């Protein structure tokens, strides 16, 4: 594996690990209010008057920022250490784990009537 492949794998793994609890516990970095067209930093309540608050953009920002930091730190690690870890396998296994976690969190949608 090349260094770029190592870092891309670390980014995807970190993103998947951070994203699942972020969507579950609402660690959003930003809130968008679509009716007002307004962005707010962090988690914000709906502004009222039937206007929803959208958190998904913020979930992506949170996970992407966290994964960039982790990948940046991984770039500082010695190549010998990076080559010992099976990054390619970990990438898809961790992503599938994250999907399983998210599926579990969303299960009530399938069962409630």
């Amino acid at each position: 594996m090349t260094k770029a492949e190592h870092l891309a794998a670390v980014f995807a793994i970190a993103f998947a690990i951070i994203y699942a609890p972020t969507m579950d516990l609402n660690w959003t970095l930003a809130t968008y209010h679509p009716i007002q067209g307004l962005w707010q930093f962090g988690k914000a309540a709906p502004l009222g008057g039937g206007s929803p608050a959208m958190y998904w953009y913020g979930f992506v920002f949170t996970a992407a920022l966290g994964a960039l930091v982790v990948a940046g730190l991984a770039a500082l690690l010695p190549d010998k250490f990076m080559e010992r870890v099976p990054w390619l396998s970990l990438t898809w296994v961790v992503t599938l784990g994250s999907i399983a976690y998210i599926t579990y969190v969303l299960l009530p949608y399938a069962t409630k009537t």
Partner: protein
Amino acid sequence: MRVGVSILLITHGILAVLLLGAITHQAIGAAWPVTKRAPGLWSAVRSVNGTNYANAVIILFLVTFAIGTIVYPAYRVSVRTLLQEYHFYKPEGMFEMKEHLLALSLALLPLYWLIWRRPSGENRVARTAITSILAVSVWWSFITGHILNNIRGFGS
């Protein structure tokens, strides 16, 4: 505004069809490659050179995703409120899953691009698995979008 959203949504749908075709061919070719080309459609699909699809998949994914993020507020305001009002929990949950699958898929794209640039025996399993995850995400998203458009789409 409404016309603009409709145009974007139709474009989003058309690009999704192209993406669906490309990623499905590539995933089948990666998962069940043929050792010797035989006549017939199935053999032709299995023997595609996945490397040729990677750039197209990435461009289509990014453009479709970007348009999706632009039309998402219209869904949140006009469609999701109706789903909740009528207790259509399953389609609502399908959309929730769609947005999360696509976010995870977006994060896989850099590695996907790199390993399809240099396909080898070493990265074959990961290449197949990552391409399959992308294919499942795209299929799920396409079907969900189709169902939601049937519930409350154009002119409703």
